[in-house]
């Protein structure tokens, strides 16, 4: 057995980083992001394997089904690169199939973490702040939205790839061991929830023009609602739609349904 010392260069890793952006370009219903993943791994495969047989085997490995939050994927690519490097240098050290089983094992938890951090928190904060400026027609809105989201998202990409490659499979034990991940998940959950609550109160102008006469005086229904609790109608509307989503009504049906219902309620004078 000849042990070699092949190593990915900084340039290879940088190339993997940029190629990682194209992850979803070949999205299909069978293997999802497989083409994009293989495309990103090409620099590593080219560097580590010199003959066609090994390169073909590696390409096939990375053309297997893959589906994960795009910004979380560079970390998995880093781990894959580290494992490929290990395998290329010493084929008896690891089973090549384990490279793919690690990928498969990481997809779901990484998507879960990525969704709640990126979509559940960063994007919610970015959209909430961005939209509150943009509603006034200020260009600051879209700019803040873009920057507030992409700053953390890009850092996750950069450091994910770096530490994924540096620590290999061990990086995961590192993260899970001390419960830091649980704490982060709790933090982002709380922030996301609070910001959504705030948006319901500030960005959902639902008011009723209904009036009725009581012993001669006209009473506005909205005034009564405001006395019970300010922004009561926006809250109830959101909770109602939330219940429907929990009942698995599709997004398309919901948006079209709310659109039609809004027109009808206005025509009969309730909203």
């Amino acid at each position, binding site marked *: 057995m000849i042990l070699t010392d092949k190593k990915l260069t900084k340039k290879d890793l940088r190339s993997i980083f940029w190629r990682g952006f*194209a992850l*979803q*370009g*070949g999205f*299909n*219903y*069978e293997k*999802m992001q497989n*083409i*994009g993943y293989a*495309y990103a791994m090409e620099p590593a495969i080219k560097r580590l394997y010199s003959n*066609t047989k090994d390169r*073909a085997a590696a*390409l096939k490995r990375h*053309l297997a089904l893959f589906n994960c939050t795009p*910004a979380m994927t560079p970390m998995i690519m880093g781990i894959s690169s580290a494992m490929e490097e290990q395998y290329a240098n010493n084929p008896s050290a690891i089973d090549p199939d384990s490279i793919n089983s690690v990928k498969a094992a990481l*997809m779901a*938890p990484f*998507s*879960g973490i990525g969704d*709640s951090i990126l*979509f*559940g928190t960063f*994007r*919610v904060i970015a*959209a*909430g702040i*961005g*939209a*509150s400026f*943009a509603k*006034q027609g200020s*260009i600051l809105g879209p700019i803040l*939205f*873009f920057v507030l989201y*992409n700053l953390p998202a890009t850092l996750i*990409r950069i450091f994910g790839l770096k530490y994924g490659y540096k620590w290999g499979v061990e990086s995961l034990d590192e993260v899970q061991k001390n419960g830091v991940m649980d704490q982060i998940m709790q*933090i982002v*959950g709380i*922030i996301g929830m*609070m*910001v*959504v*609550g*705030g948006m*319901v*109160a500030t960005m*959902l102008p639902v008011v009723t023009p209904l009036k009725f006469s009581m012993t001669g005086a006209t009473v506005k229904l909205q005034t009564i609602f405001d006395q019970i609790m*300010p922004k009561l109608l926006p809250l109830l509307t959101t909770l109602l739609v*939330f219940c429907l*989503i*929990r009942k698995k009504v*599709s*997004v*398309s049906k919901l*948006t079209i349904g709310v*659109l039609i219902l*809004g027109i*009808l309620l206005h*025509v009969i004078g309730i909203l």
Partner: protein
Amino acid sequence: MVQALLIGLIAGIGILDERVLGATLFGRPIVLSVFVGLALGDIKQGIIIGAQLELIWMGIAGIGVSTPPDYVTGGVIGTALAIISHKGIGIALTIAVPVAVLAANLGTLVRVVNLWFSHKADKYAETANFRGINLMLLSTTILFFLSAFIPTFLAMLLGASKINLIINAIPKVILDGLTVAGNLLPSVGFALLLDMLFSKKLFVFFFLGFLLCAYLKLDITGIAVLAICMAIIIVLFGNNGKKPNGKDETKSEKTEDNLTEGAIDFD
């Protein structure tokens, strides 16, 4: 014609954001509508419409089995036609929401057609043909581009001249109703986010955020900063001493939590 091409290009490039440009979210309506406004000479209106569309679709992250609405095509066409007709945000939403639902079918079609390219990529892999695989990625990318470019271009070419005729035929009460419906629609976005973040233990924070804004009139920036501080305080200082207990709780909760199930289809 030039205008239609330009708007079509904006949609085409916008849809590539989540495909090959790294999901940096410049394809979201709040950003893309700025460019639509710029192309049509009313950037302010573009920004305002984009903000409202963003709120409606902010919960969309391709969760679950149903195809999510195509906010790129829907958003661009809705914003563009609303700016051309000078009829404002109600019209934008009325066009954007159904168009997004329809356009999603095109996206589905491309993802099915892509199966063929995926199989071809497997073939190229057998001979370690890197260029072949790159070519497959490029082809699918072009398909995605066209899936947004063609409908947007056609809608602009055919719709731009007739949109005023159509809108003027709609009675005023319905037009006002559209504005009301537009105000109501972000509730879908908020509810989708709640669904994504849902866990019984955290639901109280939704009400806390709501109450702080409703009674104390905090704005979103204020609530975001406050939430960050509070969350860190609670997690760092609140969990001390009762870790084993807390751990069991989170475990039993995981079954109801969308996020930890990994049931999310990323696209």
